[in-house]
């Protein structure tokens, strides 16, 4: 069960660059269900924890906030449902769903250069669109749908990790961009539908991280959206206004649009 004090976050792609940064920054603020395929986030969990070499039997305070790691290939049948069940069994609730896992394969010579782009369509839309849809639907069906008052009091919400590529055209990113554009609009649709039972939904659309924007800042944007009352938006992180055509210009902080 939850500690009752911390919010419960279900995070996919938890061992990737952003997922790991989010876990390291917020594992003492949230109870995190960290969904990983292979690696694990570099935080205390049921798989690893800290020991004081000079007093190994003495409790280390950092270990009191252990991330709960669940390994899953989310594109396989039944895996999203298994993860939702495990999260609810472990903590009894989910206050923040972060759909961060993503398929990224670029095709620098275009979609007509062989069959790679055609073969990559299904994997991109499966992980980048279908999995967030399935998580949102299953979590709503199993926990949120008839708990409007609790959802509102807990300020429950979804943050989908999109990309500036969802609104801008970049060479070689056609398939990836199309999946992120779909995710952006899926987010808007979920926000409209889930308002009935008091669950918000937003997306962040960061610039390239960590190359152009610090990963920690992207992680911070997730936490800021969680703490906000916003819904139905796609918010750039580290993006100049003119780079984010078609998306709302709403500031999460002074440098976000």
């Amino acid at each position, binding site marked *: 069960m939850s500690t009752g004090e911390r919010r419960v976050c279900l995070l996919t792609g938890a061992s990737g660059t952003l997922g790991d940064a989010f876990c390291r920054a917020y594992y003492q603020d949230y109870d995190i269900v960290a969904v990983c395929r292979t690696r694990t986030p570099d935080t205390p969990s049921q*798989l*690893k924890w800290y*020991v*004081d*070499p*000079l*007093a*190994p039997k003495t409790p280390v305070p950092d270990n009191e906030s252990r991330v709960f790691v669940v390994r899953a290939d989310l594109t396989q049948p039944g895996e999203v449902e298994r993860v939702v069940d495990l999260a609810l069994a472990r903590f009894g609730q989910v206050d923040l769903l972060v759909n961060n896992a993503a398929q990224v394969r670029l095709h620098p010579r275009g979609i007509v250069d062989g069959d790679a782009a055609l073969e990559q369509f299904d994997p991109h839309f499966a992980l980048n669109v279908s999995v967030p849809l399935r998580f949102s639907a299953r979590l709503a069906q199993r926990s949120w749908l008839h708990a409007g008052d609790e959802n509102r009091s807990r300020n429950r919400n979804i943050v989908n990790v999109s990309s500036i590529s969802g609104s801008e055209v970049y060479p070689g990113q056609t398939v990836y961009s199309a999946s992120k554009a779909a995710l952006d609009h899926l987010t808007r649709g979920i926000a409209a539908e889930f308002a009935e039972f008091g669950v918000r939904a937003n997306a962040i659309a960061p610039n390239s991280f960590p190359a152009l924007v610090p990963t920690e800042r992207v992680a911070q944007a997730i936490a800021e959206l969680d703490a906000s009352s916003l819904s139905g938006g796609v918010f750039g992180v580290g993006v100049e206004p003119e780079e984010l055509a078609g998306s709302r210009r709403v500031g999460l902080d002074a440098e976000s649009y």
Partner: protein
Amino acid sequence: MVVVVVTTDSAPQWFAELFAHRRWIRRIQPFPHVYARDVFVPEFYQRLTDELDRVRRERPELFGAIAEGYSADGVQLAELRDGPLAVFTSREWHDLVAQVGGVEATGDIEGSVHHHAPGSPFGWPHNDLNPAWFPGEPPGPDEVRVPDDTVDTKTGARAPDVVARETVRAVAVLFYLGNPGWAPGDGGETALYDHVADGNALPSVTLVPPLDNSLVLFEVTPRSWHTFAGNNAKDRNSVVMWVHRTRADAEQRWGGDRIVHW
């Protein structure tokens, strides 16, 4: 035999000040082990590497083959007790290793500084659950015993009038030093296996990189399978050492047939 239960909660200040931090990581996969980066404060770590350089330069005759068929040469820690590398044969270090490893240790320490030349081959999975013979009566609570020339560490062979005791390796430590600039792809990691029993499926392997001033530590069990991963692009140096438990303790814990004789 008297086994002294030790605690490092009261480690002397000089010893505690050698450590850069007190957050080592206990991991359960592929088998339970402890991993730490930046083990010692930079000044002391530098003294360790300077000492390794000095020994290699001034006393090259100390470097010999570690074992038949094994690709490393090295120097016994028992030969290095007159400088900073003596920390690894100190009672304080022994007690820390035993406590972190969760065993009651005997005060006996065996180990070497290992050197793998570039291009060394992959080793073979082994669990380290081996016997080790030490000279003399059991060491006192403030003492350690290291191998000497009077007793064969692996077999116990000795003159009739020499007293010796059989122990079994209990906690293994690999401390990496003298590998500046190691980067992924340079090879020379330590491979930890989840199993080696199923010939039909490749075991999953965790590779521990030989990053300077880092260590991996684990209780020696029948399933602590590991090896040198080989294919090192540069020289690869480490301190490899064990603290020990009594033979009776090992037999009670693992069964005598699980102990791997040389």
